[in-house]
């Protein structure tokens, strides 16, 4: 209880209020713009967190995270283009409602469902994260190594269709994290004579380059600058349906929120998967299943409550174990690291008040998102008419300021640019970029735990799989199972595509 009072004290600050408000507005705008999404939104906001205290900076990032997922639904409903992949399922019933002249009602269903999903996931986060952290406190280096190996299997999950390339990208990410002085021997590794590299590659320049600059480069080079047409009449406001209508669909609302939360906890799945799983489940078991795809609010409820529930779910492994649940939380984790906070089990013991502040901040973010969404989402659509050339220029400047601002070094700007060109090359070759970041964030801990484990066991690697370490053994078995599952999924996808291609004579 003491932590709650301390957390309230931490949150009762003007800077926190401004951070949440600004984060929600910015996140919603970034979510509305098709193709930008949560990761880019958080990446662009990174430089603002450098000079902030931990609580306002975390609040800012959480606000962006939640509201960008919600923002994607606005463009999905109004212009039939999901702002983020997470909102693709919302489009299926949201846009038909818009065509019927019920855009305000559709936005109302989406806004309330998003809030509900977010709140359910916070409850699960508050209950599950400390329990998980308590178990993780018993972890030694071998268990930590096994846990990180399991977390890395999410690379396979985010690389569906290109698994080999995804795994290679993960290895590249881990390798990049090793550049710099070896913490055990003090030997500078792979610095190639550049003293700036002896401290390693900065997380922010690499993030900014791989996500933001690579996105700018790819949009610049593809030349897709077609302005989006927004019908002025459709974004006139939000109407919330009466309670009786909600009660008819309460089963889907609760079920989808739980699906989203659970999928969020699983490594590498993310909100896009959650929304489609929840939508499919609602289509199978919903009260109005026969109307799905024709503008049925239950479809919007399923998609929106589940994709927003992922935000809290994905924070469970991120905060409790220091293992990001998806690429967005990997970027979010970097904000904590920049603030000098190492996510993991010790966080709940050493900074219980801070963790409680995070939970409460997430709750406030969801409530503010609801209010801003209610009154402001019609204005957010105005951003859609912003010229892309202007937007890209602003994103580039913010990204480079972010890269420069960490240490005030021009060298970091070049690292960001190099990472941007590398990111573009990876996209050109259809190599997923998210595994590079996941590997980069987890790489140093993976090496440290491996080497510590080997020293403790006289260099015997097989002892990692011994019955003396039951938790590690279970985690390794789970890792192998997840890899087999991902391999099977990849194989069936390839087979499916092959079957689909055959009728065309290929």
């Amino acid at each position, binding site marked *: 209880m003491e932590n709650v009072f301390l957390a309230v004290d931490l949150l009762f600050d003007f800077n926190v209020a401004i951070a949440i408000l600004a984060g929600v507005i910015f996140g919603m705008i970034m979510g509305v713009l098709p193709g930008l999404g949560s990761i880019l939104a958080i990446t662009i906001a990174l430089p603002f967190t450098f000079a902030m205290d931990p609580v306002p900076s975390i609040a800012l990032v959480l606000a962006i995270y939640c509201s960008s997922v919600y923002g994607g639904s606005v463009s999905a409903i109004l212009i039939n283009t999901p702002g983020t992949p997470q909102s693709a399922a919302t489009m299926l019933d949201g846009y038909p409602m818009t065509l019927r002249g019920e855009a305000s009602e559709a936005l109302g269903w989406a806004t309330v469902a998003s809030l509900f999903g977010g709140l359910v996931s916070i409850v699960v986060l508050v209950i599950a994260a400390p329990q998980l952290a308590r178990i993780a406190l018993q972890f030694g280096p071998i268990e930590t190594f096994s846990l990180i190996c399991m977390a890395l299997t999410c690379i396979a999950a985010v690389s569906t269709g290109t698994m080999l390339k995804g795994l290679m990208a993960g290895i590249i990410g881990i390798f990049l994290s090793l550049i710099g002085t070896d913490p055990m021997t003090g030997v500078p590794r792979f610095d190639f004579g550049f003293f700036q590299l002896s401290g390693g590659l900065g997380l922010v320049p690499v993030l900014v380059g791989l996500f933001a600059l690579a996105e700018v480069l790819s949009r610049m*080079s593809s030349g897709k600058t077609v302005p989006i047409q927004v019908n002025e009449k459709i974004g006139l406001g939000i109407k919330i349906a009466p309670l009786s209508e909600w009660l008819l669909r309460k089963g889907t609302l609760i079920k989808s929120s739980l699906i989203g939360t659970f999928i969020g906890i699983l490594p590498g799945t993310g909100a896009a998967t959650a929304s489609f799983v929840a939508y499919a489940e609602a289509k199978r078991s919903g009260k109005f299943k026969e109307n799905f795809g024709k503008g049925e609010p239950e479809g919007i409820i399923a998609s929106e409550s589940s994709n927003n529930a992922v935000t809290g779910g994905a924070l469970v492994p991120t905060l409790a174990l220091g293992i990001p649940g998806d690429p967005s939380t990997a970027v979010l984790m970097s904000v904590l690291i920049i603030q000098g906070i190492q996510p993991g089990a010790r966080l709940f013991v050493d900074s219980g008040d801070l963790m409680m502040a995070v939970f409460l901040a997430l709750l406030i973010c969801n409530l503010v998102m609801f209010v801003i969404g209610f009154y402001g989402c019609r204005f957010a659509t105005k951003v859609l008419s912003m010229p892309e050339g202007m937007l890209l220029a602003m994103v580039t400047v913010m990204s480079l300021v972010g890269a420069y601002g960490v240490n005030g070094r021009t060298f970091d700007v070049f690292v960001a640019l190099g990472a941007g060109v590398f990111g573009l090359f990876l996209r050109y070759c259809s190599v997923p970029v998210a595994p590079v970041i996941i590997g980069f964030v987890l790489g140093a801990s993976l090496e440290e735990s491996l080497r510590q484990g080997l020293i403790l066991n006289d260099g015997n690697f097989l002892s990692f799989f011994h019955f003396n370490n039951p938790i590690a053994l279970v985690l390794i078995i789970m890792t192998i199972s997840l890899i087999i599952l991902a391999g099977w999924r990849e194989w069936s996808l390839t087979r499916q595509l092959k079957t689909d291609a055959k009728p065309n004579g290929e």
Partner: protein
Amino acid sequence: MPMHIRNRLMSAVMFLICIVFFYELRRPKYSASVFLGQGFDPAMFPRILLWAWAAFSIVIFLTSFSQKNRFTADQGIDIKIAKITIFVPLVLIYGLLIQPVGFIISTLFFMILFMPLAGYTRLLVSIPTALVFTVSTWWIFTSVLGISLP
């Protein structure tokens, strides 16, 4: 360029990068400090990763020749090299000029040059936008957030 050619190009580039890093690992500093790492030299883990990296490159290269491998969800983006060759040096020059010229002037010129390249040619709008954005960004960072920009 078809995807299987891109795959070959990418795996060849990756393999070359691996060779460069393998060569770097041959330097004496990596093996001279074994005793400091209690029996494990600082090259141990990178070496494992490099082997895996090289192995994946080879497998991707070989599978690019397989006909059945063409049926995948593999779809890269298309890029126009001409635009990239203008954009990348522009960012490079911008990065070089931030320190000596200062944030405001370098950013202003960068944005004014960038917007037409990105397809927005209305100078009457882009110049005031660049000016307002640059000055407000500088003000937010230096005065509100306390982060010094040159």
